[in-house]
């Protein structure tokens, strides 16, 4: 990936910023310019809640070269507390038995890096909420 591609997308990657259609009361993450239900182009940015519930998860073993050092890692479907569904990576799960229905929260984490001297890419992952 190149610096420009990375730079222009960083807002929604660093923070859970979605686009919101007032007419449909529908939120989109990742954000998009046009509502998929009504065609509204006047969507506004809203911050999504940082907490939600794990709906389904999978441990990924076969992956891209950029993520192979990280594997196995977990991808989950998360229903945030406002009802928005997102698909994201889970982290800090080594000591935990994952189950559908557990509470998770968003955290800022490194995603991958372009070799020893390349860019380091950051984004949002989710971790189980400690009780």
């Amino acid at each position, binding site marked *: *990936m190149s610096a420009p*591609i990375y730079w222009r*997308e960083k807002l929604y*990657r660093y923070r859970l910023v979605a686009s919101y259609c007032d007419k449909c009361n529908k939120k*989109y*993450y*990742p954000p998009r310019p046009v509502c*998929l239900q009504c065609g509204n182009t006047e969507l506004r940015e809203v911050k999504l809640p940082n907490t939600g519930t794990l*709906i*389904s*998860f*999978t*441990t*990924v*073993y*076969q*992956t*891209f*070269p*950029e*993520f*192979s050092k*990280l594997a*196995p*890692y977990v*991808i*989950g*479907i998360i229903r945030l507390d406002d009802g928005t*569904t*997102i*698909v*994201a*990576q889970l982290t800090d799960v080594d000591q935990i038995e994952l189950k*559908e229905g557990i509470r998770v929260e968003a955290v800022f984490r490194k*995603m*991958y890096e372009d070799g020893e001297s390349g860019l380091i*890419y950051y*984004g949002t992952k989710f971790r189980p909420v400690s009780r």
Partner: protein
Amino acid sequence: MSEVYITGIGYTQVSEHWVKSIKQLSLEAAVKAIKDSGYKKPDSIVLSSSLASFLQHQEALSNLIREYLGFSNLHNIKVEAGECSGSAAVEVATSLINSGRFKNVLVLGVEKPSDKLPQEFNASLSSTLDRDYYFYNGITHASLFALVYKLYMKQYGIKQEDIAAFAVHDHAMAVNVDYAQYRFPISIDRVLSSPNVSEPLKLFEAFPTSDGASALMISSKDQVDNPDYAVKLEAISSASDLSFVYRSDFLSFNSLRFAFEDLRKKTKLAKKDINFLEIHDSYSIAAPLIIESLGLAEKSEACKMLKEGEFEKDGTLPLNMSGGLKARGHPIGATPIYQIVEAVLQLRGKASNQVSNAETGLVQSMSNIADQAYLILLRRYK
């Protein structure tokens, strides 16, 4: 829809062709299709390849292949629509003929992922999903199916062995199919004890790395000179769906539902008229979701239908007589054209797992997790 016919087919063995290039595979399939058509000279080549720009770093591929096939000057175009590129290429070729511009169009699908390491193939396949989101977050093609796999088992109380049985079915069919990649049976225990790709999805539930090229000569009606061999392209329907992350129901493929509604509107097709079905079962779990989204099984019933033998050669809905994506193989841009090749063989009465009295066959393809889908209905000429 149309008066467009398939007058020739050609294909290579699906395999890992270490010693052949993307061009050599294309040539082999194209020459066979031209020969099979009674040596028709195509007016155009419509090429389907989805990943050559990633895997071979080659663009303008259709013009390159045109020259390699020995045509010094010939209309050509590449069509790309992810894993359903081949179906889209057939659609474009059909339109070129229906418009009256051309009489014979060679549709050629080719892919050669074995030129790269499996991880790089995996990364290239992620290019058919929005890389800004899915790749960036480490969300693989297989992981989406794995997420849905768990939801399906939970929602309907179905065991993994009943879903993984679709891989066993594909292998059982491929044993007889001369062009299939894996011509051996596998047991359910072997499938379930294979390594995880993205748990619960096992390696033997996932499509392999497949190289191959397949070709069709598509012709206007006046070009049909062998009615016993010609197969009618009765109808093509396509539809699309929201990207996975925006969906509200993960267990229904809307693109397939929309495409099938459109197809039935165009053709008055009744379910019982479908003599055989080729589906894009890139992973075992895709099979029940496809069959149920098409309405050919009630929700949660597809695995039961498999168990009861309804998808066998002599069942009510013969499924993947070619061996499907698991065992025939999945050379991405060529896959839908291999599916159509199998349908043509069935309708000619020359298939390895021949369905008796086959008159109408349905071919289903899709990209990713049904982000885009195609249905192609084929009918015997006579």
